[in-house]
């Protein structure tokens, strides 16, 4: 994948405290976990009030969508080596199995293509063993910091 040649930087580890503190992701308590050249991994810690099924102590799927969305955004800024405003065009999540009760869920998103205006991301979510995912996801994002091309 093409990486920008200029000297700008985006370090997910350094940006995380600011980007994950406020709003919906702050409310969820998302945390930075790790990153590589074109991927970023975030964690959703276990919380008793995010259940979709109280009886079975199963996490709702909504927080997983938010986790995948945010991990995707950070993977894109990481791959672009800069922070630019982006919007999610679409996001698909395939649920492989329910996350185990009282386990944090990790999502690792990889930005596999960057164009001038779009970014494409794929990733997996797991609850401790990355070889046994709880979900796979893919999404398409768009830069919204530039006027539309006529």
């Amino acid at each position: 994948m093409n990486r920008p040649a200029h000297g700008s930087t985006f370090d997910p580890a350094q940006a995380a405290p600011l980007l994950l503190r406020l709003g919906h992701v702050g409310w969820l308590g998302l945390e930075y976990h790790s990153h590589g050249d074109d991927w970023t991994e975030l964690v959703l810690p276990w919380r008793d009030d995010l259940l979709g099924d109280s009886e079975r102590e199963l996490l709702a799927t909504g927080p997983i969508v938010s986790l995948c969305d945010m991990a995707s955004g950070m993977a894109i800024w990481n791959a672009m080596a800069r922070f630019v405003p982006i919007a999610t065009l679409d996001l698909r999540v395939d649920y492989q199995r329910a996350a185990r009760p009282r386990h944090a869920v990790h999502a690792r998103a990889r930005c596999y293509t960057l164009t001038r205006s779009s970014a494409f991301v794929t990733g997996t979510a797991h609850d401790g063993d990355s070889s046994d995912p709880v979900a796979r996801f893919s999404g398409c994002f768009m830069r919204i910091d530039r006027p539309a091309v006529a």
Partner: protein
Amino acid sequence: MSVQPDVLTPYARALGIEVAGMDGGIALVLPFASSVEGRPGVLHGGAIGGLLETAGYAAVQITLAEQEIERRLKPINVTVQFLSAGRPHPTYAQGRIVRLGRRVANVAVEAWQADRAKPIATAVMNIMVAPARPPLGSD
């Protein structure tokens, strides 16, 4: 008259989702708050996704209850299309069952704000409609 199922999960309640009405199917509403904010002044896509999914499950639960069918719903997948930025206003969502089969429900969901005719996001969901209790002999 069947008993109306509780369509709001602990997650949905924590997010602030409420039942908005039952006109033409169950509609839900998510008030704007900092807990659902993404970029400043804009609704977070994940919160919209959570609202859409909750509305999709609600539509299936209500229909099953009307038919007095007891089933357990399991997520298969969801695809969310984000159409425009969600403003700091209440967001509504309603699901429409495209097909309710014996194993799978296919549901189309729309979310809108001031104008029902201008959705801000749509979703397609496949939901497994599993027996409420596992059959004898299975674990």
